[in-house]
């Protein structure tokens, strides 16, 4: 999300409002069984999710999603760091990994039913399996992409291998890891729903499916809206966490957004021909240019 001012907030709300109003006008006119007006959907939403079904369906769904996601991130980062560091192991395991990664998790539902049964473990397994790959592969990329100079530096200062891994490689790979984790979050939410379509006895996806079975279309839509809000909220949360953890990265690659006191301090020594336009151009090109390697600072700008 862009760091925005109040005007931007207002602007961002205009399109959704227009869409909602447009839909409502059409729905009232068309009288389509499958597309009820907003007031009906809203009524169902309030009935179900404010807050009657929250403990019985929303919380179990979220708990499973978060459990699966946590497992995926933990395994993904650890395995990714191992595979990123040990070239031969990575090559040996590559075909297997590529195969497993290509399996769409929904096709594994029967397998997970067999292995784990119809309970929470099957769902958590499915979510973890699907969310694992972006984290794993991005971690491997992040580890491999660590600047050799910084590794040489660490070695030259006799920093022990374990510290190199945890204090140099891991932070350097963190931007890529976060990117993978973000994709994985979206996948986890999708699979949270998918995993509840078979062998479930509670959950948001389950509720939506039940509503569909019972031709309770407004309730079905209310659940769908809730899922959208859940996704939105988690993404916003993720971005906030990422911004704190990767403040250094955003600063060094110029992605900070509006100029702040920090970015103005970037130009330290008085330059002979420093005009406002030159500063603006410099800041803009800093914001636009991608970093050549993670964790590094393009030095051309610094002269």
């Amino acid at each position, binding site marked *: 999300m862009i760091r925005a001012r109040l005007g931007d907030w207002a602007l961002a709300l205009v399109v959704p409002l227009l869409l909602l109003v447009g839909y409502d006008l059409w729905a009232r006119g068309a009288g389509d069984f499958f597309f009820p007006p907003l007031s009906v959907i809203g009524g169902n939403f309030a009935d179900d999710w404010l807050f009657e079904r929250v403990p019985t369906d929303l919380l179990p769904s979220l708990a499973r999603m978060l459990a699966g996601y946590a497992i995926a991130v933990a395994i993904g980062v650890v395995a990714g760091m191992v595979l990123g560091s040990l070239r031969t192991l990575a090559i040996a395991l590559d075909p297997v990994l590529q195969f497993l990664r290509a399996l769409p998790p929904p096709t594994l539902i029967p397998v997970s039913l067999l292995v784990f049964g119809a309970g929470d473990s099957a769902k958590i397994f499915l979510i973890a399996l699907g969310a694992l790959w972006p984290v794993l592969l991005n971690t491997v990329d992040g580890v491999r992409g660590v600047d050799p100079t910084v590794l040489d530096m660490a070695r030259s200062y*006799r*920093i022990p291998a374990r510290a190199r891994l945890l204090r140099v490689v891991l932070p350097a790979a963190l931007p890529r890891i976060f990117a993978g984790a973000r994709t994985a979050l979206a996948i986890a939410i999708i699979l949270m729903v998918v995993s509840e379509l078979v062998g479930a006895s509670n959950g948001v996806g389950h509720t939506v499916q039940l509503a569909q079975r019972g031709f309770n279309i407004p309730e079905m839509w209310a659940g769908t809206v809730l899922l959208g809000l859940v996704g939105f909220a988690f993404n916003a949360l993720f971005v906030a966490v990422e911004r704190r953890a990767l403040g250094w990265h955003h600063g060094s690659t110029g992605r900070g957004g509006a100029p702040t006191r920090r970015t103005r301090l970037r130009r330290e020594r008085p330059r002979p021909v420093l005009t406002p336009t030159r500063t603006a151009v410099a800041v803009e090109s800093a914001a636009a240019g991608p970093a050549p390697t993670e964790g590094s600072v393009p030095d051309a700008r610094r*002269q």
Partner: protein
Amino acid sequence: MLVVSDLSKTYAPGGEPAMAGLDFTVGEREFVCIVGSSGCGKTTMLRCLSGLIPPTEGSIELEGRAVQGPPEDMAYVFQDYSRSLLPWQTVAGNVSFPLKYKGLSKAEAAAATEEALAAVGLADRGRSYPWQLSGGMQQRVAIARALAYKPRILLMDEPFASVDAQTRAELEDLLLDIWRRFEITVLFVTHDIDEAVYLSQRVLVLHKPAHVFEAIDVDLPAERDQMDTKKLPRFGELRSRVLASLRAPDTTSA
């Protein structure tokens, strides 16, 4: 202090050597510059000297002990300073980073960091991040990091090649000042002949594959000044001599 004997390095077996028969010594508290044209094997030499890669033949001794892997009393300052600093650490964090693995307590590390930053003129920038600093300042952070480490010998790989002339002049003088005050030995690699003559007491001219073609003593007055020293006729002479040595055809190499 540093004794390099017959050092050779061939990367691919049966291939061309990158370094062949490198031989020189550096005495304590000396400031020695190494010049060589591009591709003569300077990088290979430095990576062997710093213990990052093993040589194929020959030996390196630092203070009487053989070098097999990065030695304890040596600090390496890289050419590409921006990529050798950790972007997620502050300036002070970067400088103190190697210190905890040297066994210093937090207080000791903090004191050493403060001292080093003051020495390079960045005493008030401890809380900044590398990306907030200019190129010259970043290199000063790298030097501070090396200083705080309290090495006996400083290995520097064209450290001022990527800064502008003005900054370079400042950094050269800063380096000389630090060399004198902290009484360290410096081995400085550069392709800039002016810089080599200005800074050092002795210039080693490298030819390809990396070996010492000629050693030239720099008998300029000990006090160096950017303007005065470079005006001296002796400066010009030495400069020409180094240049000639660089350009001379090498019939001694393999």
